């Protein structure tokens, strides 16, 4: 019964909030509740920027970064759709979806991926995605559980925002979830280094991360600490030995 399952979710959340107040419990609870290997949540900003909110393990984090880097995948699709996305056998990929994402996601350890829009009624916040380390479809009850979890996550995130002053991200959200702002800091730096727009700098960062098989956030951090920079004259990326700065 749905109420029973909902109460279970709320109990899992309460349990985690007591013991791990900074852990970004939404994703961990999502994975535990649906009995899937990992989960991730993404939000859409008003500029239609797609931002990772939390991931429940290292592979989920990798998958989320991959989607942001290549701009395609189940979470991206679910963000912009009204229905669930499901690929129960990523390696086989019968429907020929996500030609950049799929092989790399398989290599990372995802054999099935599922994603659900995070909404309250018609209001769209983002998406909840799952992966499983073996192929196979979701059972009917897993699917119902995933929908329910998406609904709870939507409300939980909004409730965290409810206490914040206007135009400010709630402190609770910053504490509880793991937005990766270093990517945007790095984009700002690259924009000035390369005399390009921030939008293009983001694209350049993603492309370089993808080309060097590095995670986007690792690359961004290296840019921020000035180990990596962009040389506009050669159009090449440079490794520095460590500059000083004020």
């Amino acid at each position, binding site marked *: 019964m749905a109420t029973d399952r*909902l109460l279970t979710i709320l109990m899992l*959340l*309460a349990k985690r909030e007591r013991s791990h107040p900074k852990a970004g419990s939404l994703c961990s609870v999502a994975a535990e509740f649906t009995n899937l290997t990992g989960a991730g949540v993404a939000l859409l900003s008003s500029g239609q920027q797609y931002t990772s909110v939390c991931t429940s393990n290292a592979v989920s984090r990798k998958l989320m970064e991959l989607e942001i880097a290549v701009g395609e995948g189940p979470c991206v699709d679910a963000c912009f759709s009204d229905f669930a996305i499901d690929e129960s056998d990523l390696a086989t990929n019968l429907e020929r979806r996500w030609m950049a994402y799929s092989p790399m996601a398989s290599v990372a350890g995802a054999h099935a991926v599922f994603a659900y829009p995070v909404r309250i009624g018609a209001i769209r916040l983002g998406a909840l995605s799952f992966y499983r380390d073996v192929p196979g479809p979701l059972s009917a009850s897993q699917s119902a559980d995933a929908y329910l979890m998406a609904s709870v996550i939507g*409300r939980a995130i909004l409730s965290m925002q409810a*206490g914040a002053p*206007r135009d*400010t991200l709630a402190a609770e959200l910053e504490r509880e979830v793991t937005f990766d702002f270093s990517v945007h800091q790095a984009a*700002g730096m690259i924009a*000035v280094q390369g005399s390009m727009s921030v939008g293009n700098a983001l694209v350049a960062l993603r492309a370089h991360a993808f080309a060097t098989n590095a995670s986007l956030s690792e690359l961004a951090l290296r840019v*921020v600490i000035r180990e990596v920079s962009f040389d506009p004259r050669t159009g090449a990326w440079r490794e520095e030995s460590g500059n000083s700065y004020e």
Partner: protein
Amino acid sequence: MSRESLLIATLVELADNLVDDFDVIDVLSLLSLRCVDAVDVDAAGVMLASPGGELQVVASSSESMRVLELFQIQANEGPCVDCYVDGRAIINHSLKDPDDRWPQFSPRALAHGFHSVHCLPMRLRGRTIGALNLFRTARGMLSDDDVVVAQGLADVATIAILQHRTSLDAATLNNQLSNALNSRIIIEQAKGMVAQANNFGMDHAFELLRSHARNHNLGLTSLARSIVEGTLSGRELDEPPKSKVR
């Protein structure tokens, strides 16, 4: 109005505010039942403060009039009122007759066969919004383990209320969230640009943005947006005064 009609009216009023698939009364009723199973008590109810500050029962483990009457009396006097006002649990209070503390409540509770009463605060963002009210017929005290479980259930009830309240305001909250997220992204991008342009670290860059915004009476987000859009260069910002008194 009879006590029963009053209770039903309250529930109906709350039910009118329920949105889509989330039935908060259902969840809280189930929680109250669970409470009686999980903790060594005989009746449980969730009390919420009305805007006027009176406590009202919104869900109960029992429909018996003897139980409901005891909730009703606690609108203005009783352990839950004290718990709500102080924000602290009231545990293992033995009822006695007469009782200076609760002259109306205690004799009635004893008359209905209860020997002790317990109230756990429901706290949200530093405020108490209500209480989980427990009644026990057996003599003796609740164990420490039971108290921990009971507080945990009170926390779950709080999350359920929060989920419900959030769905009432979802559109507004989501706009605020997606705008706040967008503003935050722009600020991080501007930080990167300013850091690069001036060869500063991120903290120094942020300080520069903030003090320039203050000096020119600009919103931080709108200043950041000018930097990112290129209408203002990171090198044109006012350097904050060197000797800053914090």
